[in-house]
């Protein structure tokens, strides 16, 4: 066998050869992927894709313009390098490769995105349940057309007002526990039409003239609505807002559906990147073992790879947070090690996987977990020692911070639990739910913030969000907070 390429220059034939070669390796490891579609784009187009949060088609909105300007500025001045690729969870799986990459980088990116991420998208339960790879592109095209149609009919300012308000609430547009409806604008509309027809057929004005028994609901028997708190704020607005016009409801729905599409990505960041990094590392190494790439290729690859998986300590320069690439990669590597070469400690901690076939175990882990549960299940003491993890507690009642636990025998379980919590949604998205809609009264809407660890909302920003909500709702909206004691306080009230 000879090397696939020798220099840094890439061309389309070489990209295809690499894709084929890496695809063979991936098949040998049993990776199950969607077909690939590789698109070569320029750096400017990469900036556009950035601004559109990685979606290939987006509706026009100023916030994307702002993002574009921000990224462009940062990129031009050299503050920020561009990602080498963007990959879209669709079928076929679309990966954007930048034309400025060297051949080695393109190969790395193909291994990382077209096989790593791709197989994760296809296998992981969150992606399977919350997104539809087959329908997303069509839905985005529909959304774009719909938004632009609305702009034409009702004016840009009107549409923008609704979208702004929806964006403020977009993180609260997801059902965490219910399996969402399949994405299909057509079905949805067909259902609505059917309902309208049904109503028309069963409308009989005579009923109005029949002497009735008066109003059946009295104040005493009125039930609270909704019966259970509703966490999907955008869904509740879409279905129950008293004032929204049908087209505005559809806009709310569009923002909600797109937010939902991103939901799995947020919750599997660590796993997804770790998985992709693990696989580019293995696939490229296998190419090297098969003598398909030369030493120069390998050195460049290793340099990029080690940059990606670098984890600076909390007190070192360049520390941002836990690097999902570094930790994800380390965890999958560690899992492989536990399977293939377990220590007595591993056997104590992971009796059910120590010594099993690593490919099966990794596949199981990739399919059935998200970051939070993945850490809870598989973070080993060795890895905590390697990363030298420690937990700082910041408690309101204490005048000082204190070290809660470190990577030692007494701290492993506690540390793992805390790290697990760090990846739980409540940690970064406040838990705000609809608790009351005065359907028969003043039509006001009450949200409740269920505090975790007594952490309050950033009040000024919350007020801005409530203004947006009031605009969507059309009547008074209220925000309550409930802490550990169970006492409910009204925090904000905003007239519609």
């Amino acid at each position, binding site marked *: 066998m000879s090397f696939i390429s020798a220099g840094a220059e890439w061309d389309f034939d070489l990209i295809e050869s690499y894709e084929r070669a890496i695809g063979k390796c991936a098949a040998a490891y049993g990776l199950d992927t969607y077909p690939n579609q*590789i698109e070569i784009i320029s750096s400017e187009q990469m900036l556009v894709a950035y601004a559109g949060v990685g979606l290939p088609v987006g509706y026009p909105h100023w916030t994307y313009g702002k993002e574009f300007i921000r990224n462009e500025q940062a990129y031009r001045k050299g*503050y920020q390098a561009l990602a080498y690729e963007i990959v879209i969870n669709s079928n076929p799986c679309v990966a954007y490769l930048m034309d400025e990459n060297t051949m080695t980088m393109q190969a790395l990116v193909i291994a990382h995105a077209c096989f790593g991420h791709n197989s994760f998208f296809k296998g992981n339960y969150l992606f399977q349940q919350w997104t539809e790879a087959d329908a997303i592109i069509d839905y985005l095209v529909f959304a774009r057309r719909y938004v632009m149609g609305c702009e034409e009919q009702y004016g840009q300012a009107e549409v923008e007002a609704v979208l702004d308000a929806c964006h403020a609430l977009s993180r609260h547009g997801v059902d965490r526990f219910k399996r969402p409806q399949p994405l299909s604008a057509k079905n949805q509309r067909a259902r609505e039409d059917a309902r309208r027809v049904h109503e028309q057929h069963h409308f009989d004005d005579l009923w109005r003239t029949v002497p009735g028994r008066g109003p059946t609901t009295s104040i005493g028997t009125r039930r609270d609505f909704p019966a259970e708190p509703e966490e999907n704020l955008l869904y509740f607005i879409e279905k129950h807002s008293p004032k929204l016009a049908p087209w505005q409801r559809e806009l709310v729905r569009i923002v909600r559906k797109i937010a939902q599409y991103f939901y799995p990505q947020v919750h599997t960041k660590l796993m997804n990147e770790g998985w992709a990094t693990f696989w580019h590392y293995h696939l490229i190494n296998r190419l090297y073992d098969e003598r398909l790439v030369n030493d120069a290729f390998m050195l460049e690859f290793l340099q990029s790879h080690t940059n990606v998986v670098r984890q600076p300590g909390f007190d070192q320069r360049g520390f941002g947070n*836990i690097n999902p690439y570094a930790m994800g990669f380390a965890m999958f590597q560690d899992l492989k090690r536990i399977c293939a070469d377990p220590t007595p400690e591993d056997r104590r901690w992971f009796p059910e996987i120590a010594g099993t076939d690593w490919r099966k175990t990794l596949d199981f882990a990739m399919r059935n977990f998200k970051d939070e549960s993945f850490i809870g299940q598989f973070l080993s003491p060795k890895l905590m020692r390697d990363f030298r993890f*420690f937990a700082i*507690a910041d408690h309101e009642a204490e005048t000082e911070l204190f*070290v809660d636990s470190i990577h030692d025998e007494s701290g492993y379980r506690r540390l793992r639990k805390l790290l697990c919590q760090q990846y739980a949604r409540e940690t970064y998205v*406040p838990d705000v739910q609809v608790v009351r809609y005065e359907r028969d009264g003043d039509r006001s809407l009450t949200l409740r913030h269920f505090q975790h660890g007594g952490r309050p909302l950033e009040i000024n920003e919350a007020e801005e969000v409530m203004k947006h909500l009031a605009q969507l709702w059309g009547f008074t909206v209220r925000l309550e907070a409930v802490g550990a004691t169970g006492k409910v306080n009204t925090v904000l009230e905003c007239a519609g």
Partner: protein
Amino acid sequence: MAHVIDRRRNGGNESAVNRARFLRRYNEQIRRAVRDILADRSMKDVEQGGNVRVPRKDISEPVFRHGSGGDREIVSPGNRDFVKGDRIPRPQRGVGSDSKAGTGESEDDFVFALSRDEFLQIFFDDLELPRLERDVLLGSDEQKMVRAGYTTAGAPNNLAIVRTMCNALARRIALRTPLRRRLDMVAQELTRALEQNRPECEVTALLQRVALLQRRLQKVPFLDDFDLRYRNLITVPAPTARAVMFCLMDVSASMDESKKDLAKRFFTLLYLFLTRKYEHVELVFIRHTGDAEEVDEQAFFHDTRSGGTVVLSALQLMAAIMHARYSSGWNIYGAQASDGDVFGADGGKSRSFLAEQILPLTRYFAYLETADPSGSRVSPLWVEYQQVNAAPGSFAMRRVAQRGEVYPVFRELFRAHARLSTP
């Protein structure tokens, strides 16, 4: 097998729409920022476009997020010497109370570059030449294409498909209906003939007729030459507004460097504004000391020359040029900058010449007086010009003493639809 697609050539400017929307949305903030820039920049820089700084909080999008307070634990990597139970003094703002800290979100300002066009657009956004009249046909050679119904001949790209198909459909219905009717009749007769066992020859004749009719039906074409209709475009003269701006600048010795700078800033703005906003505006540059001369742009803005002051000479030259070159079909504007230091009868003569010879022919005349930075002293020319009794909106005068005042005064003088009059 993967598809590899080269997308580099598609859609070079996909971001333009969203960028324009962003600029529109924050028009107010950006405009404020742009105007602040002018106060401390030279005109040359303004022409280049440049960076605009908008407070980040003005353009942030709110979401529900955690504020400071409450209890939390943060796990970080890289422990070296902490052990369980170590106590650490709380930093001023609470560790990690802002989860965004460190990602660069804490910058106060959102800075971005505007292109030269965007810059000037914002500069001159609601300004226009007052009382501009669009003169139709007057010597205008502008043509524009307008739609004018349909024709039966034309270029393929102008084919009106719907109209053509309507014609074709109508023609097919008209030609086929009688044939179909006859075919039906013959077919019925054939059935009867077969039922009644008529002679062979009769049946054959009927069959032949059926075949003939079917052939004729098939021969009616789906689309025929005379169905074709083309969109008709004709050219009509486009109404254009022709305008000329006279720039009159005093470069006498009493105009010191700072005053000349003020005057030049004013005319630079005027020049940028006119060349940007109007395609058909001619500019005439006149500078005067003791006598007036017409100069080109280069000399007007960059030449240094000085001498005495006779304002009247410039006004006379302007009138002469008006009569010679712009006697009919032109919107005439004038802008004059001077420190107003005139001697003897020059002021009075200038006033009456302006009022009698120039103002009746101009749409608008602006006088800008470059005053001393200290100065509340009223110049002789200012006093004279105050007595000009012009139609409302056709004459305006303003004083500037500071660099920073030039732009606001300029805006005031050329604000769209503003009612201007002598103060």
